[in-house]
């Protein structure tokens, strides 16, 4: 997994609420057997009009907005457990997604792939979206060790929550399997006590 510590970047605003994983990466693109190349089809059905013509009204096709941070609407990532959604965002180049609420499975998948789901409150999210619209060059500073998001032009610095174990993994670029494999003995010991009913 790619390490993540700090990031300073402009951001792409996508002020739509309840974005589900079928929109992030439609099911027909899940036929791959590798993790690469999903960025091309990120938000496919919003990004392209019939005939694969880029939709000029969709933010990813608007050169005004660039950056490694996606600022989405409330309740991001609901729906399917497909990790392809996190891969697509990461492959496209995003390293942070900001929202005021994340679906559980998406949050876990993102953290397992070096993509930071950063939750802020509704009010700040709305202000941030408006501020980016007004000034596409607005920069954000994300500091994972300190767990802070700084928006200099809004004169804001907020602390965000992240699971301490996941934070350690992201900072060091470790994954769960590296960690769990160190627990092999404890796991084997547990197995001797499992009830027959569940074996």
């Amino acid at each position: 997994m790619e390490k993540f510590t700090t990031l300073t970047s402009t951001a792409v605003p996508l002020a739509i609420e309840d974005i589900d994983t079928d929109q992030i990466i439609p099911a027909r693109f899940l036929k791959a057997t590798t993790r690469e190349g999903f960025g091309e089809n990120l938000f496919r059905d919003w990004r392209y009009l019939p005939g694969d013509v880029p939709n000029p009204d969709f933010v990813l096709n608007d050169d005004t907005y660039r950056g490694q941070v996606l600022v989405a609407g409330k309740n991001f990532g609901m729906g399917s457990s497909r990790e392809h959604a996190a891969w697509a965002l990461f492959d496209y180049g995003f390293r942070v997604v900001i929202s005021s609420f994340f679906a559980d499975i998406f949050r876990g998948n993102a953290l397992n792939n070096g993509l930071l789901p950063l939750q802020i409150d509704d009010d700040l999210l709305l202000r941030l979206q408006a501020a980016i619209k007004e000034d596409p060059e607005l920069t954000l500073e994300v500091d994972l060790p300190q767990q802070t998001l700084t928006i200099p032009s809004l004169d804001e610095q907020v602390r965000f929550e992240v699971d301490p174990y996941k934070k350690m993994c992201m900072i060091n670029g470790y994954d769960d399997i590296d960690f769990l494999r160190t627990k092999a003995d404890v796991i084997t010991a547990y197995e001797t006590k499992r009830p027959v009913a569940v074996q």
Partner: protein
Amino acid sequence: MQKTLFDKLWDQHVVDTVEGGTDVLYIDRHFIHEVTSPQAFAGLRKRGIGVARPQQTVATADHNVPTINQDQPIKEKLSRFQVDTLTQNCEEFGLELYGLGHPYQGIVHVIGPELGITRPGMTIVCGDSHTSTHGAFGCIAFGIGTSQVEQVLATQCLLQVRPKRMRITVDGTLPPGVVSKDIILYIISQLSASGGTGYFVEYAGSAIRNLSMEARMTICNMSIEMGARGGLIAPDATTFEYIKGREFAPSGKNWDDAMAYWQTLYTDEGATFDKEYVYRAEDIPPMVTYGTNPGMGIGVDQSIPAPASPSASFQKSLKYMGFEAGESLEGKPIDYVFIGSCTNSRMEDLRLVAEYVKGRRKADHVNVMVVPGSRQVRDQAKREGLDVIFREAGFDFREAGCSACLGMNEDKVPKGAYCVSTSNRNFEGRQGPGARTILASPLTAAATAISGHIIDVRTVLTPELV
């Protein structure tokens, strides 16, 4: 101390606890399918390791498979490649595969229970969000991502933070024409598509207790549609009766031992939940959805809400569906009806549909697909002559798979067409690009197929169905 059923099960499976409170959770059963597993196997190969406990993982092919001519090679190249990759991976890593052509093949959440693999007290995971279905047996079952599929293959454990607990109680007696799908669509419409986020739900109350196992699975299946990690129902006589005698169910002394353990699986009197909701079964109507998430549901005789200042998302959703705020869906002409998916493709669903349509014929302009959840369901339906009833009604009775629940195989709903579907998601493009999905119960779907427009089943109930 009084414990909830969820906590009893969770505690039983904690192998170790990491700093910050993350638990190492032991996984009793792991299901895999072709879509979310290939990258996990690639990961194992890259690390140079095998599957830790091969007997605890079972594989099937369901998402990508065609639902006709399953005896022939899959035509679509990428689908075929994904299904073949699963076969190769299972061979290489020594896993049981109920692939295409196997008598046990089917949607992963249908075959686990019907084979007696899913049992009370277990932890069950699968790279698929509707793994929550298995919770109907009183187990902790939830969907995981592909990195976690790799974790379970590699270690038989998962790192998990314990979710909060919610109890949803439904008491009373369901009105005629209202079935378990309506209960869960009603609950989600009350709590919204994100109302359960962060929670694991226990469903309780007399209306839930009175449901069959298959009806309970429909409820637990859609827990994820309100954002919950999963949902479960305490096992009881109905559960034990269902499991007994199934292919992989324990027998003899093992059955007695299992029963002794299973009977301890309930929420203690006085145990507390982080959140509780109580509903009355009598208040639940036949439900339909009008928008693009499962929380956007109404009683079939009600009107689409017309908020004074609708949000942009609400407007976008209605525009996609081609509906107006304030209008009713009753009487809307429909192009497609899909009866299937891990929510409603079991024997009881097919029997209910057959009972309604027997001796009737679908409206001419409607395309109707009935897709059984598994080979075993299909074979049983044929033994009972349901295939004949469907054929005479003009329904297309197909072979087992996920089918038009998601647009990954050949079964898709065309752009702009309306489909009344017994599946679980009405997201934009879920059943094919531009497809418009209206979620409903199998009974509402059957009645809609016959009338050709959305119909309140209560107005057409025959005495046998009441």
